[in-house]
């Protein structure tokens, strides 16, 4: 890489134009200038190659050298990904800090997978086995939670002529394949171009819920494994807390968290908090299943554009091993703005609000990389990638292009509402505006596995919330006292659904996660009040007494009942029945 291939002719911010790179392809990676900055070819016109540079270009000028690498922007995949924190082009931020100091300096480079770490490889096939792309050759215990499967790389087929248990770093040869083109050596590491989706045998419809432990999500607007969701909301409405909660509690086996153009301190929060949090199903630290990609807002904008692809390529790699993977991208608006900025520098014809005309197709092709699939490989393992993208619309205006382009492709919409956030109702997911198109899948599962009337109570609760919204209009005009008695009970129940069920404190140790079973108990307890209070009212009980039942204070605290004491809900229900019966005139 010492002889330069071409030279710079123009520099404008992160956009550099070079000449003399004959033979270079679109999206090939190049190194620019004496500082050897990372860049990617994004336009070719005759002999002029436009390069988006991932680092600050100060000091670059015409005449400086440009080197080709012959390869598109790619990620390194192999043991060592878990627990890592990368920037948008997969540079390991921990190693950079160790070797280059507290600031990310230009041209700094370290291998994405640590070459000093030792891994133990156990074979899963024997010599003589015929293998093809995606077949698992063996495994490496990468972290307490993740058994890393070493697969036959893309496009390779052959007979295993050598394989044995070995220990060594990721570059260690673990097997030799005999192919028609001669023998090839397989190591623990492979590379993949990030802008290309990793192939699968077949895509399937999502069939299982992705349980998140968040009541408003699991009960009312559920997510499916392999599905897509978006969380739009103005600043201060709690997007990042929602994303963090999902990264913590979603029952996926692998979490890829992409901090795309957001705050540095938020990534620090994740880094400091995750190692101390325990996964509810395995009891291990959450960090043991997490990969972080952090390209904060002040880091170079071109690397921000790449960060989303880096994240999804890593997610797909773990999916190919047969895992259910969830990817959180916070925030896709910053990603879209990075596209806009680069497009502006290329002097492309702008579409809506200055965004490039291909905004919609880029967003769609990103979300399309989610899915429930049958992986390549002879064992036909099933796996999924779910994508949850945060969107930060300017001024909270949902008609802007990024939100609209996103809503056209995602199946779940959790609309955050700043009015709810001001009232300190978190998560501030607006229950009247949000939707999930996976409701049927989740209902089918929950009705058979949790409770037969899961979907029924959900529908009833939602209807109460809708009626409350209508009644509220009326209350605003005429005051609450003029409502009919049964409407007062309805208002009271809806308030309980809001405050005692939907409201969930992410910072409370016990409230932060609620299992679907307990969610059902809680909501059914609230509806139990509604049914009994209404019938008591018809039988002559006084409204005042029904509204002031002391047991309601216990319902308000029921969300803090520990998961293991769920029989308390039955006690509460029975006591509520008798307390209400005691209010009847003939009692």
């Amino acid at each position, binding site marked *: 890489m010492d002889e330069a291939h071409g030279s710079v002719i123009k520099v*404008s911010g992160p956009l550099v134009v070079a000449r003399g790179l004959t033979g270079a392809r679109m999206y090939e990676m190049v190194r620019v200038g004496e500082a050897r900055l990372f860049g990617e070819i994004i336009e070719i016109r005759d002999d002029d190659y436009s390069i988006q540079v991932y680092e600050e270009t100060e000091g670059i000028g015409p*005449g400086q050298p440009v080197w080709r690498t012959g390869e598109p922007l790619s990620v390194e995949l192999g043991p060592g990904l878990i627990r890592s924190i990368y920037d948008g082009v997969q540079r390991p931020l921990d190693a950079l800090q160790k070797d280059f100091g507290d*600031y990310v300096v230009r041209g700094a480079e370290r291998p994405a997978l640590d070459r000093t770490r030792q891994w133990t490889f156990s074979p899963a096939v024997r010599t003589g086995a015929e293998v093809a792309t995606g077949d698992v050759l063996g495994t490496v215990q990468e972290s307490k939670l993740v058994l890393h499967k070493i697969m036959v790389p893309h496009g390779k087929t052959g007979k295993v002529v050598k394989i044995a248990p070995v220990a060594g770093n990721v570059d260690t040869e673990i097997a030799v394949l005999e192919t028609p083109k001669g023998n090839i050596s397989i190591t623990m590491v492979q590379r993949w171009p990030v802008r290309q989706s990793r192939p699968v045998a077949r895509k399937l419809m999502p069939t299982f819920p992705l349980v998140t432990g968040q009541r408003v999500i699991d009960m009312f607007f559920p997510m499916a494994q392999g599905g897509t969701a978006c969380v739009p909301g103005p600043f201060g409405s709690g997007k990042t807390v929602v994303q963090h909660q999902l990264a913590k509690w979603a029952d996926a086996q692998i979490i890829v968290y992409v901090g795309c153009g957001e705050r540095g301190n938020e990534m620090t929060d994740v880094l400091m908090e995750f190692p101390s949090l325990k996964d509810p199903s395995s009891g291990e630290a959450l960090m043991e299943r997490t990969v972080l990609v952090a390209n904060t807002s002040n880091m170079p904008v071109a690397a921000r554009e790449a960060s989303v692809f880096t994240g999804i390529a890593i997610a797909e790699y773990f999916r190919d091993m047969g895992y259910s993977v969830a990817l959180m991208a916070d925030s896709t608006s910053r990603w879209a*703005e*990075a596209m806009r900025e680069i497009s502006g520098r290329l002097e492309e014809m702008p579409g809506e609000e200055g965004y490039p005309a291909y905004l919609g197709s880029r967003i769609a092709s990103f979300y399309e990389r989610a899915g429930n699939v049958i992986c390549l490989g002879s064992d036909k393992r099933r796996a999924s990638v779910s994508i949850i993208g945060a969107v930060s619309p300017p001024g909270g205006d949902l008609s802007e292009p990024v939100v609209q382009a996103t809503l056209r492709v995602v199946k779940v919409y959790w609309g955050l509402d700043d009015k709810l956030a001001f*009232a300190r109702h978190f998560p501030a997911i607006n229950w009247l505006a949000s939707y999930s198109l996976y409701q049927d899948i989740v209902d089918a599962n929950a009705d058979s596995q949790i409770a037969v009337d899961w979907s029924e109570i959900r529908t009833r609760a939602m209807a109460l919330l809708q009626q409350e919204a209508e009644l509220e209009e009326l209350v605003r005009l005429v005051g609450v006292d003029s409502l009919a008695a049964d409407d007062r009970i309805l208002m009271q129940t809806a308030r309980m659904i809001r405050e005692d069920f939907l409201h969930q404190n992410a910072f409370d140790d016990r409230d932060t996660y609620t299992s679907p079973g307990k969610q059902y108990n809680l909501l059914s307890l609230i509806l139990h009040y509604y049914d009994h209070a209404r019938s008591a009212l018809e039988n002559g009980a006084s409204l005042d007494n029904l509204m002031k039942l002391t047991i309601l204070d216990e319902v308000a605290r029921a969300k803090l009942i520990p998961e293991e004491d769920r029989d308390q809900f039955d006690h509460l229900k029975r006591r509520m029945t008798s307390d209400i019966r005691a209010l009847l005139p003939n009692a």
Partner: protein
Amino acid sequence: MAAIAREYRTVRQITGPLMLVEGVEGVTYGELTDIKLTDGGIRRGRVLEVSGDMALVQVFEGTSGLAPQDVKIKFLGKGLEIGVSQDMLGRVFDGFGYPIDDGPSIIPEKYLNVNGNPMNPYARDYPNEFIQTGISTIDLLNTLVRGQKLPLFSGSGLPHSRLAAQIARQATVLRTGEKFAVVFAAMGITFEESEFFVADFRRTGAIERSVLFINLADGPPIERLSLPRTALTTAEFLAFEKNMHVLVILTDMTNYCEALREISAARREVPGRRGYPGYLYTDLSTIYERAGRIKGKTGSITQIPVLTMPEDDKTHPIPDLTGYITEGQIVVHRGLHAQGIYPPVDVLPSLSRLKDKGIGEGKTREDHADVMNQLYSAYARGKEAKELAVVLGESALSEEDILFVKFSDAFENRLVCQGEDENRTIEESLGIGWELLGMLPKGQLKRVRDAFVEKYYPKP
């Protein structure tokens, strides 16, 4: 970069603050230039774009009075740098770091590029140390922590300058034995505003541990673009090399953004919302994200940017994009100001995102979080009842509503309102909080744990 400085007389075009120079060689992006005028005067500029043998140069002091044939331009072979030193404390500088207070020039300890490098997220330490500002609405309800960036969202004619000055004065006297500094960055503010700060810093002696960077409203707009970067480079030096806790006040970010728009328009870039460039978010983030703490270092940078929202509109691109980057906001409210309440902080839309990690036992007091939540919810309820009374008349309010209305009035007059020189400890603020909660029956305090109600609820 070429070592020799090169001089050219080949300016071909002048548009707004931009100059196009032809036939240049070895010029690099971001390089600084000296522009020599025929009368011997020198202006400074920076390369914005270089293409072949043409360089587009942005002139910092503006191009008025320049003629292409008269100008000699020299490329200096380096980016915008500032010489920093601990002796900068107590001094006043312009946006490029040149002293403007008639004092001696600074002997730099080192030269630093003003653009800095992005802090490695892995190197950051989480901000969780409480800063006492002595202002109840901040300390008690929107707690500021070291390393946070918390802007004041204000409007024209509101007392944000007085509030910022009060924070600067009071926030820096916490524990003994720690070194504090204030870096004050003023962009495009008027002489009167600037004089207010300087006089206030002098009056209280704060000037001794402050570095002031001032660009007045009649100064060159382009200086406004480099000023916050110069100021933050100085702050980083003081914080991470001299182990100081630095509070940076940036005022007024609206002027900064207007200057950015002015340059963008002159370059004929595709405008984003309201004519601001599409990269406004990225640009602002390279300023705001320079707040923080670093693992293993004693010092910290805390930022209080001040911005005046055009038409008090929070959805305007400047406050909107700021809010997406900063860790919360303190909203200064016109209605409260009109009621004569100082500081007129509207606590409902205000927020400190990092407060949860900076409060509680060992940091402030065990009951802080509960008291805060309870005050919020009671105040919100009172405000709601008041709105209802406007529509339906006071007679429509229930007894409970009337109690909350009284509470919210007392909240504004007793807790929000305080003197400009009144420096309340967190204990005092919590005390006022409990005094207000004492107006409500114990049964209404649903967000406070029973043990704290027992311990702190005012005894009759």
